[in-house]
């Protein structure tokens, strides 16, 4: 079985993987990082969103072997020394979390957006989360939370 090495949340990890395995499964099953969610497995719902080399990607579509040498950040990698990321804080403050299943993916998409564009318009925020589905909130509070971070940032 080939092995693949990549950086996850700042730490270099080496994992033995089958070719036909996704980054999502390695993150959840081999590395035990279950904050990233497994749902549609078709790249539609965004619950599996992680940041890879600075870009938001659907980890259910990336083969683990294709992620070799890349820098991956999952939801677990956001809080610094136990202190929630401003995006996480804003989601809580704005009531943008109901069942919470879409939340990690939403937060990662927001993180990727704000790193590139610290002061997005509402339209740009909505564009950034086009690939993240939420069945609970109707998106309004999520958008407000991201705009709140950019206002404070």
């Amino acid at each position, binding site marked *: 079985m080939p092995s693949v090495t990549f950086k996850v949340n700042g730490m270099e990890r080496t994992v033995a993987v089958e*070719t*036909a395995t996704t980054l999502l499964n390695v993150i959840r099953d081999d590395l035990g990082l279950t904050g990233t969610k497994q749902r549609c497995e*078709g790249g539609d719902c965004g619950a599996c969103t992680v940041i890879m080399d600075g870009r938001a990607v659907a980890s259910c*579509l990336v083969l683990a072997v294709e992620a070799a040498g890349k820098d991956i950040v999952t939801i677990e990698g956001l809080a610094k020394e136990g202190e929630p990321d401003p995006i996480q804080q804003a989601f809580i403050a704005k009531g943008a979390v109901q069942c919470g299943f879409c939340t990690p993916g939403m937060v990662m998409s927001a993180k990727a957006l704000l790193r590139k564009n610290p002061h997005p318009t509402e339209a740009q925020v909505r564009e950034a989360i086009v690939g993240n589905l939420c069945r609970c909130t109707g998106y309004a509070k999520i958008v407000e939370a991201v705009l709140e971070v950019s206002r404070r940032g």
Partner: protein
Amino acid sequence: MTSSARLASSPLEYLAPATLEQLLEVLSDLGPKAKVIAGGTDLVPAMRKGKLPPAVTTLISLRNLSLSYVRESAEGLRIGAATPHADVAASPLVRREAQLLATGSGAVGSVQIRNVATIGGNIANAGPSADTSAPLLALGAQLVVAGRHGRRTLPIREFYSGPSQNSLEPGEVVVEFLLPKLAPHTGTHYVKFSPRGFMDLAWVGVAVVATFDPAGRVCQDARIGLAAVNPFPMRAVKAEAVICGREVTGDLVTAMARAASEECNPNPRSRRVPAWYRREMVAVLTRRGFLEARRIATGVN
């Protein structure tokens, strides 16, 4: 339980060649046992659905071949086949020289998809509604194809050989797109018409590249690419012939739009979208795209 059991019925080998020569050698040696993976956003879901041909034993990755780039050359813009849609859409060069292609790439899926999916994969899959197909057809783009024999260049019109079929020979791979320089006073426009406006396939895709005299009175050249209204992406050559070299009048634009509507071949058995509706929208969007291209080229409304 992991998903890996569902992605392939038996273990697959994986190769990530460091040079194009190595890639071509492997493709030639393995023949139907090899499957090239670019971004993987079409391939991985297909694998999950069990659609990987049983003969395939090895995935061959393009990741180490430096095929992701947008550069200027004497002949025009060159875009590497493994360039992600996000890079095509954001490229200042593409936006300046071939704006409708930035629109097309920008219309694919979502941020997550565009960060990984490539323009080469989009075209090579030969899907009839691919968002970069109509823009590249209207641009008169050339594909650079590499094989053991060397390289060959072909116009994108010759790339499609049937529904979801391309004309690549065994062992060949698309490596680059060449976009010829556009003449002065040329405007470009692409409309992807779809129910949600994002994360869906086009119901109708209309791309227009048109050149005018500076006053916008005469159309010197027009190329119209259509997606999702034919077994494979097509040029509306009859519509182009209506307006090419002619003075632009309301009647002529209407006739051009009607011609495009009549020469396309939307799937008559589609349950999602009735063929008559697609034809109507081809007329609407061809007219709209043409007038917008003229506005961009000359400022004339």
